[in-house]
């Protein structure tokens, strides 16, 4: 009962070096589950932590989870579109880091604290 999809085996590249050998198989679901768990950890961190910088770190964690899922799908379909999209994920992450950190520095200068709840009056 082959319920999990098998990636076709690849003996090339680093897989051999990693000890997988020619017959190592990879299942898609394992990677998707790892990506899901990482995304949820990032989500929980974003909701619970009160430090602005850590909140942004948690968004990066969620980006990373999306990246793992994209690469796994790319490998599963044996094309490079997923990997190409990870390049754009990296781009967006870099842009987000630059802007978010500039904002954090700005907010820190205003109130001398990184506490997100210091800005509750912005609820409007």
């Amino acid at each position, binding site marked *: 009962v082959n319920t999990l999809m098998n990636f076709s085996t690849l003996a090339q590249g680093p897989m051999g070096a*990693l000890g*997988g050998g020619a017959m190592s198989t*990879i299942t898609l679901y394992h990677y998707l589950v790892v990506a*899901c768990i990482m995304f*949820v*950890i990032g989500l929980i*961190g974003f909701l619970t932590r009160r430090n602005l910088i850590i909140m942004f770190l948690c968004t990066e964690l969620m980006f990373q989870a999306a990246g793992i899922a994209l690469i*796994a799908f790319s490998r*599963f379909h044996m094309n490079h579109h997923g990997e190409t999209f990870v390049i754009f994920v990296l781009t967006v992450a870099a842009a987000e880091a630059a*802007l978010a950190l500039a904002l954090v520095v700005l907010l820190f200068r205003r109130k001398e604290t990184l506490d997100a709840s210091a800005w509750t009056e912005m609820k409007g």
Partner: protein
Amino acid sequence: MVRPFPGGGRGDWPEAWLVEHFVSPIILYIACGLGALGVLTALPKPKFSPFVIGAIIGGAAFGLLMVALGLKAGKDNLPNFHFYIFSALALGSALRVITHPRPIYSALYFILTILASAGLYLILSAEFMTFALVIVYAGAILITYLFVIMLATEGPSEAAVEQLTEFDRQAREPVMATFAGFLLLAGLTSILMTGTRSLTVNASEVANGRELSVMGAKVERILREARVERSDSSGVIIKDTVLRDGESLAKMTVNGEERWAVDVDKGVITVVNAAGTKREIPRDQWPADLKLSNTEGVGMTLIEKHPLSIEIAGVILLMAMLGAVVLARKKVEMDERAKLDAAAREHSLERAGDMLGLQGPFAQPGVGGDR
């Protein structure tokens, strides 16, 4: 598809029916609940936040989930050993990112998460993205984070810096957030376990090499370097290069576009010699290294299929750079009097430098004077 309990199927995996319909969803939900408990235990709380206990519970949940997945996959389809190491490392350090009370350690553990994910990428044979991830993410983005964390540390004295701030010590709404998060995880993973089963591998490694038909120079170089045995006109076996002297790749037309005649689907490379006679090289004579490397594949896909996206990515980066410069710029408020003072100070520094005959940076006006 409901299969009858034992023996009705192929019988090679008799407990499959049980696993498929009963064990696996329950294991999944137990694992999710256990994981939620682990995260909840590890999250920072004012009095006592035992990360180790939380990590052990979370690790048990992860192990349970992997066992469930492995049972479902069957013993022939298990991922290789390194997958478990890298994913446990990635998830464990991700947990530490959100539970460590000190931001700087959170950032360092995030670097560990990145490196472990790079390992996962490597297992998926995405070499190019592995290196891009390590260089861009661990090397550049995280260093920016570390800089900002160090810049934005509060407290007037060293002792105050050493003390944990109140908002780092206490999580906000940990129970609700963990519950919501793991409810999402249970939903996501149960859909994964049941919903996408009809997905099939729809491409083979053959399709992976289609881009070779636009890389004439590479194909010619490889064909010229590889040697193959053939009999010449008088019947003597000689060793010759696959692409003989005077021959070059022919052209073919695919969907109205002219390409090099490297037909991966049919398994035929057509070459033409100086006289214009065509010759076909079948797949069994192709050299082993006639294939697309990962970097080439990513590059070709990027340039061929997503050219507009690259432009947009460039614009996004430019906007982000401008935005960051505008946002983080520090406005210096100066009234007329202060401006005059600053000008006078610079002038006197310049004159002092002249009198001392200083060269180099000290001869520059204003350096070190206006801090």
